[in-house]
């Protein structure tokens, strides 16, 4: 049975890297405008799951469906053509390039059919896209390496949003960030949610923040899903309890 109402669905995804079984069969569904938070330890397989959803890795087994249609992504570009955009943990930003070059990385605007880049248009559109979702940078000509972690994260998100993403995948957007900068990113995510035209999956480590911003949450441990629930019905203590149980089981 396939549900055409689902912006994205994954069924029984497994992934093996040589001898490492990173995912043991994970399923998820995402409605349009919905936000899923993914929690779990380092090395649990969260990033691997994201990279499969974004077409960067092919799953070893399992199915992906977009609006009820089964798809097999052959590349990041292929997934992107279905409106799926991922902001990776390493942000995929090039520090030595300007903000606007990064915003248009691999989808550069050229002068008509000529091979030459249209810097002016990219500059203007980058500035407009950043303003549209309320991101402040000193200048779009600034090298990305000069910016703060929060600004860099915001630029990576803005890049994904400005390419008309229907599904936005965020891998640890709040990692290695001070409270103020994390607040800025959460506010940005909330603005995107409020617009309602994009579904989101966010990997995070802070339970309270995730429950607060996401509609539903999922716990991934050692490549399997150990908990799934609506944020409204889930408490931080409940999540902590699951982790404790898992540790006790692992210790035995």
């Amino acid at each position, binding site marked *: 049975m396939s549900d055409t109402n689902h912006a994205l669905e994954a069924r029984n995804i497994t992934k093996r890297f040589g001898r490492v079984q990173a995912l043991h069969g994970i399923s998820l569904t995402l409605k349009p405008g919905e936000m899923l938070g993914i929690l779990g330890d380092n090395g649990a397989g969260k990033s691997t799951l994201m990279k499969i959803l974004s077409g960067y890795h092919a799953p070893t087994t399992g199915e992906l469906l977009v609006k009820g249609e089964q798809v097999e992504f052959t590349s*990041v570009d292929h997934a992107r053509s279905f409106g799926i955009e991922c902001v990776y943990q*390493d942000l*995929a930003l*090039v520090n030595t*390039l300007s903000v606007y070059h990064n915003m248009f*990385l691999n989808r550069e605007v050229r002068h008509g059919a000529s091979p030459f*880049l249209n810097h002016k248009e990219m500059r203007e559109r980058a500035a407009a896209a950043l303003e549209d979702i309320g991101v402040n940078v000193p200048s779009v000509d600034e090298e990305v390496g000069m910016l703060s972690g929060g600004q860099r994260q915001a630029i990576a998100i803005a890049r994904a949003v400005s390419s008309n993403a229907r599904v936005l995948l965020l891998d640890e957007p709040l990692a290695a960030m001070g409270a103020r900068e994390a607040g800025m990113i959460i506010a940005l995510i909330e603005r995107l949610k409020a617009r309602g035209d994009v579904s989101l999956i966010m990997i995070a480590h802070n339970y309270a923040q995730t429950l607060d911003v996401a509609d539903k949450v999922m716990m991934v441990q050692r490549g399997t899903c150990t908990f799934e629930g609506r944020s409204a019905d889930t408490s931080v203590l409940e999540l902590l309890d699951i982790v404790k149980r898992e540790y006790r089981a692992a210790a035995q």
Partner: protein
Amino acid sequence: MNKKTKGLLALLLRKPEASILLVGIILIITFQSLTPDFFTNANMQTVSQFFAPWTLIACGEIMLLISGEVDLSVGQVFALAPFIMHFAIVAGLPVVLGVVVALLVSAFLGFCIGVITVRFGVPSFITTLGAMLLFNGLTLTISGGFPLDTPDGITGVILGGWEYSEILWAVGIALAMHIMLRHTRWGLHTVAAGGNPTGAAEAGIHIRRIKIGNFMMCSVLGGFAGILNAFHVTSIDPNAGGANVMFLAIASAVIGGTSLLGGSGTILGGLFGAAVLGILQDGFTLLGINAFTFDIITGAAILITMISNVQFAAWRRRSRI
């Protein structure tokens, strides 16, 4: 410090091309005031012939360095390509097609190095070190170790007949490559491939393709520089080029502001860097200064530029000029 000098200082620090250009101008003024022979037509020809091949090869190395690779074997392609041209002509092709065949073979050699480097994940320092010995052996084998005369005809005149032909080609190609680096997707993706390979791949950039392409370009430029040089000296020499021309090209690139760490570089800087090295070598010859001193100065210049590049990058980050 007033505003104007501060602005100038900021420009010099931010634009590596600007600082090396300034060094070049200072050197020209110095040599001109020390010897009346500097600004003569004959000497300008000498200077330009010094640095034309370095410029051409530097252009190729800069693209490679930016994408995070290096080619040590290009000096051997410099020697090999004219022989390929010679044998193509002996086989009955017109000179123009002989040049084309030699450039195609150069491109193929670059392709092989590139594929071995990216497919098998061997550092290009190693692959091209191997290729360097291999190509050199190939040249010595097919030439028998003896030099040959270049063919007559209009092609040779256009390529290297006039005293300034080489430098015109070099500057023209450098300008075209500058535009390619700054104003095409290829250039941008080259920076991305060296600046953040994982990130570039995640953005969907085919970094292997970019790197292989740049290896091919570097080899073709090396082969072309070798052919120009052969026509200029009217002799095809199995010992032409070699590691020396490769090192001077990389030195030009680094002095001009290209990072050995990948992700940033400038073609114009490489052009100015090559010119500065050419002017230095020539000026020292005119002044009768020992040739070894040139090597000492080149070596010191590379060290100083490398250190200041690293230091300035950190300092820029802190002070945001």
